[in-house]
């Protein structure tokens, strides 16, 4: 948690305003101006394509086919959105993505917390070995699991189900979650546990009454960071899901390509805009928590 709070406590320490003007007058820093220009340029590169995506979704088709791509749309239209909803079952896709994201997150948080509790708090003889075992999952690419899981799923009839996506998504995210929870549990003082133990609380009550409530912040971090990846997962969904009813957003979007040999780009972009909105809203509202989560996740490594 040290790293997580560090940025917050540091930011007020940015040069005191009284000293700043004097220094600035002495050397009208070329370096600072340059770095500002550079930052702006890079931000434009990062953001403009997304703005363009949105603008294009409001263009008419002729405008898109003939016009200068940088120009503002000559007229705005919502028709693309109407066509987007006709072509695909966007509501269904969003619902499916939501179910998969929730299901996987539940497993990641609950199991991550449990494993971290067993390894970090309860402790056992092979705990170092088990911790190492979980580390493998951080390094290994997810593609290795595709063929074996495809075969296993078809023997136990799990192909084309929500579980077929949730299991590997949760499994591969588990190591990072365990890691984040263990590093948080390290900061819960031993005395807290010892006092509770003296009062007669067993490991289950301590988990439920002390560890769980204290870790809510870490839960938020873990959920936010994982949701980005799970919501957008393409490879597991593409491999294990076949029926339209179960298609998540990334697969649903693919339906817009080649449906009739050619692509209706403006409608496709409208669909893209619709599907990125939920996560984008969550991100914009909770970006502070998400950014802190991402920062702390790696700086602790």
């Amino acid at each position, binding site marked *: 948690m040290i790293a997580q709070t560090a940025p917050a406590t540091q930011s007020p320490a940015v040069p005191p305003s009284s000293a700043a003007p004097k220094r600035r007058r002495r050397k009208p820093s070329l370096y600072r101006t340059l770095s500002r220009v550079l930052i702006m340029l890079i931000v434009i590169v990062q953001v403009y394509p997304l703005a363009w995506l949105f603008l294009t979704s409001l263009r008419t088709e002729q405008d898109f086919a003939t016009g200068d*791509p940088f120009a503002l749309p000559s007229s705005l239209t919502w028709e693309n959105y109407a066509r987007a909803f006709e072509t695909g079952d966007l509501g269904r896709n969003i619902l499916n993505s939501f179910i998969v994201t929730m299901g996987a997150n539940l497993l990641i948080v609950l199991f991550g917390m449990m494993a971290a509790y067993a390894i970090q708090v309860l402790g056992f003889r092979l705990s170092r070995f088990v911790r190492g075992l979980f580390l493998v999952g951080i390094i290994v*690419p997810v593609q290795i699991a595709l063929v*074996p899981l495809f075969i296993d799923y078809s023997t136990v009839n799990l192909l084309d189900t929500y579980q077929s996506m949730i299991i590997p998504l949760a499994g591969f995210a*588990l190591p990072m979650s365990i890691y984040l929870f263990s590093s948080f549990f390290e900061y819960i003082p031993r005395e807290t546990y010892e006092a509770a133990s003296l009062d007669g609380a067993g490991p289950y009550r301590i988990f439920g009454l002390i560890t769980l409530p204290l870790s809510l912040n870490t839960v938020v971090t873990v959920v936010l960071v994982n949701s980005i990846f799970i919501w*957008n997962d393409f490879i597991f969904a593409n491999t294990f899901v076949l029926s339209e009813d179960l298609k998540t957003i990334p697969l649903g979007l693919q339906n817009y390509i080649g449906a009739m040999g050619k692509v209706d780009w403006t409608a496709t972009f409208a669909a893209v805009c619709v599907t990125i909105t939920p996560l984008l809203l969550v991100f914009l509202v909770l970006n502070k928590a998400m950014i802190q989560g991402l920062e702390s996740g790696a700086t602790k490594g």
Partner: protein
Amino acid sequence: MLPNRSRTSVLVFLLPPLLLYCAAVLFPILQSLFLSFFSWNGISDMEFVGLQNYIRMLTADDVFWRSFFNALLYLAICLVLQLGGALVVASLLTSLRRGRELIKTLYLLPAVISTVAIAFLFVRIYSIDPVGLLNQLLHWVGLGSLERAWLSDVNTVLAAVSAPEGWRFTGLYMLIIYAALIAVPKELEEAAVLDGASKWTLFTKIRFPYIRPVWITTTIMATTYGLRGFDIPYLMTNGGPGQSSELLTTYMYKTAFTSTDFGYASTISVFIVIECLVAVGLILFMLKRKADS
């Protein structure tokens, strides 16, 4: 260790996560290893072929080697964009007084967008008819001779499919490096400035050594992510034209699910895992040794 714990309580907490992890991660790895010694199309009987798949992969499969080198180039482009870009922006950002939070948010935005959406977006950015953003931009700055269909030109397609992946995650790595940079003790930096250190020496002698542990972590993250890159090349070009943007991952996927050659696909999978482990080992070896010297 908690005083009042029993063996059962450890198992109650450890077993469910461990089972999930074994089912989804560990067991499939072993299974891939096992399958890599067989020839199997998923329907007929499995046939044990020993090392034959490995021999075919390493000595007789041009597509495999092509994909391997493509994947290395893809990785290199991603690393330059992600780590290089991240380091530059994070350093610049520390000199900024206001708007840091806003820039961090904007910069991270692409990481939230799904790869399918990004693939669509970049297909249009690279397109020539109707003219896409990139070609229009080249035209304006007087480099019209460079205009081309970036995704169907065998010389540019690999770079063209690598760039979106780099673009997408630069913000993520920037955040991590930025968090490390602002944790560098101010006293250290001020002392160096008083001693007359230039911006560059300040960076190479104080800041960078201080953030080295985080740099190692991010390099490992970016490398393992780069080696598992799949979505964007698969969606944008499906490895084409020819094999000019085929990566090991896309080749493995097609071998498994288009040619249904499960045994050989598993052999490629095993190779990818070894490749990742070797890469991580190399990074640790190189960066740790430099730190010691």
